[in-house]
């Protein structure tokens, strides 16, 4: 179609293209400015001399160790629990209860719109109610287990729920491209149990969505502030906020590190979703799904 355009038109198109770069350059500046500012602040004093005091200040006071390990444990657990619960559920719905699929999809999307602050408000109401049963009661014990500073299970559960909307879709899309029933039946004919089938047959075929979910959940969990702060659980972001009043340069350094970590993780999540996703979906589609379709078209 391009050759039919008048030369004036094409010239005008070139001008449009040039103008289209302007907002993109502006956006790039807007995105880079805060990041570069905090990076500069972390390593340079106001007179321009180089310093690593922010970085060493973090290591000196050992206070960072506990929140850091707590955050790491919670984030890893959240990622593992998410994958271990969502994958079987989605497989089950695909295999045995296709009618439940829309119910599951709605349930998994809802946390997207209900803000974290509302969920945590509800959580604290429930936790308080548990604690109100008095010392030694089951409710009190449950409350203590959930909110334990060593292993705050309440955070693991909440982060799984908060990440569900994003990861459910990815896993559901990945499984939709697989000939699940064939895989499941051939695997059970060969004597495999459900768990073995999931672990050895289904999981390797949805490596892309699994990696996406793991990276995404870890990244969101390690940077999450609202839930942890409201429940007074000292995770890394909560520590970061309290640190800012005593060691501002240290807190900025830590925030840059945390930011870069989450960005890298989220970027790898996006990349693994597209890269592995294409590879693993291309094969079964080319071999299994396309051929009958071709025959149908010919006949």
């Amino acid at each position: 179609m391009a050759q039919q355009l008048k030369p004036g038109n094409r010239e005008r198109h070139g001008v449009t293209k040039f103008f289209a770069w302007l907002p993109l350059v502006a956006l790039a500046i807007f995105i880079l400015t805060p990041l570069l500012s905090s990076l500069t602040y972390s390593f340079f004093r106001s007179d321009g001399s180089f310093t690593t005091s922010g970085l060493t200040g973090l290591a000196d006071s050992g206070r960072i160790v506990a929140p850091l390990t707590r955050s790491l444990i919670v984030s890893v657990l959240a990622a593992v629990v998410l994958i271990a619960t969502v994958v079987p559920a989605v497989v089950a719905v695909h295999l045995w209860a296709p009618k439940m699929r829309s119910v599951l999809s709605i349930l998994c999307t809802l946390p997207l719109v209900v803000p974290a602050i509302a969920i945590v408000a509800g959580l604290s109401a429930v936790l308080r109610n548990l604690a109100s049963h008095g010392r030694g009661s089951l409710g009190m014990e449950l409350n203590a287990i959930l909110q334990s500073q060593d292993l705050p299970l309440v955070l693991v559960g909440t982060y799984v729920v908060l990440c569900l909307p994003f990861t459910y879709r990815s896993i559901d899309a990945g499984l939709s491209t697989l000939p699940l029933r064939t895989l499941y039946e051939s695997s059970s004919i060969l004597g495999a149990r459900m768990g073995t089938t999931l672990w050895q047959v289904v999981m390797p075929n949805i490596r892309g969505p699994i990696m996406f979910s793991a990276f995404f959940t870890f990244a969101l969990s390690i940077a999450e502030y609202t839930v942890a702060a409201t429940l007074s659980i000292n995770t890394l972001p909560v520590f970061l906020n309290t640190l800012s009043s005593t060691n501002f340069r240290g807190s900025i350094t830590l925030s840059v590190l945390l930011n870069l970590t989450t960005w890298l993780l989220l970027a790898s999540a996006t990349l693994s979703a597209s890269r592995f996703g294409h590879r693993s979906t291309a094969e079964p589609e080319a071999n299994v799904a396309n051929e009958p379709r071709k025959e149908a078209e010919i006949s």
Partner: protein
Amino acid sequence: MISAPTDTRRRSSLSPAWAALAPLTIILALFFVVPIGGMVVTSLLVTGSSPGTSAFSTDNFTALGSGSRSMALKNSLLLSFTAASVAAVFGGICAWAISTVKSTVVDSLTAVISSVLANDGGVPLAFSFIVAVGNTGYFTALITAVDSTFTLYSVKGLILMYQYFLIPTMILLTLPSFVALKQQWREANTSLGGNSWTFWRRVGLPVISPALLGAWLLMFGSAFGTHASAAVLIGTGAFPLIPLEIAGQLAGSAATGGEGVAMALGVTTGVIAVIVLIAFNALTKRSAKWLNS
């Protein structure tokens, strides 16, 4: 489901299905359904006339109409409305620009960066803005030269900071629509004697406006519920917002009995969020009708 012939087969195959569904169901129930239910119930309970009892009433909701709470609601609505509108304009322009330059580098960068930044909004974001344009920030003088009343710790500052995750959200949501605008429509417009102004006014904008409006709504909801970065920047009290008010009421509720009010605020946020989702779905369906055909 109760049809006789397949009954036995179905029952035997249902048990692994439930076993596989159970873990997710338990997690969703414990950490989503029960808290939301608890929140709704608590928001409707007030301490009864005799101590230790409680009664159902809408007092907690009427309490939202007064004092700092109504202020917070007004601020939150104003902030979300303005922030979403600004992001819709700039993000829309950027999405158009990305679809126009047609550069593979820009496309792949956009795919990664926009999905990364759309999930930003935490403590590090607030810190990096404090360093960049806070009271003694590197670029504060640059902004106050344009607008002398600007401070980061105000509604203007929040709007600016929210753009950092709202503009990428806008691009993420609307770029597919801009890309899907068909070249044939443009050519038809040209051959009928139209210029690009007529194209956008008569064809382009009408076709993508549901997508734009849907994205605006989603950003409104996202800005309304943002807590972490606002909490770090504003703290409590200085500039009341609904999410900050919820956190504040929860922290002080042991003494002041603000728990019910906090729950009522939480319910309000949830209701706004659900309305946003329903409207967004309706709008997306509408725009899909044109763009995917």
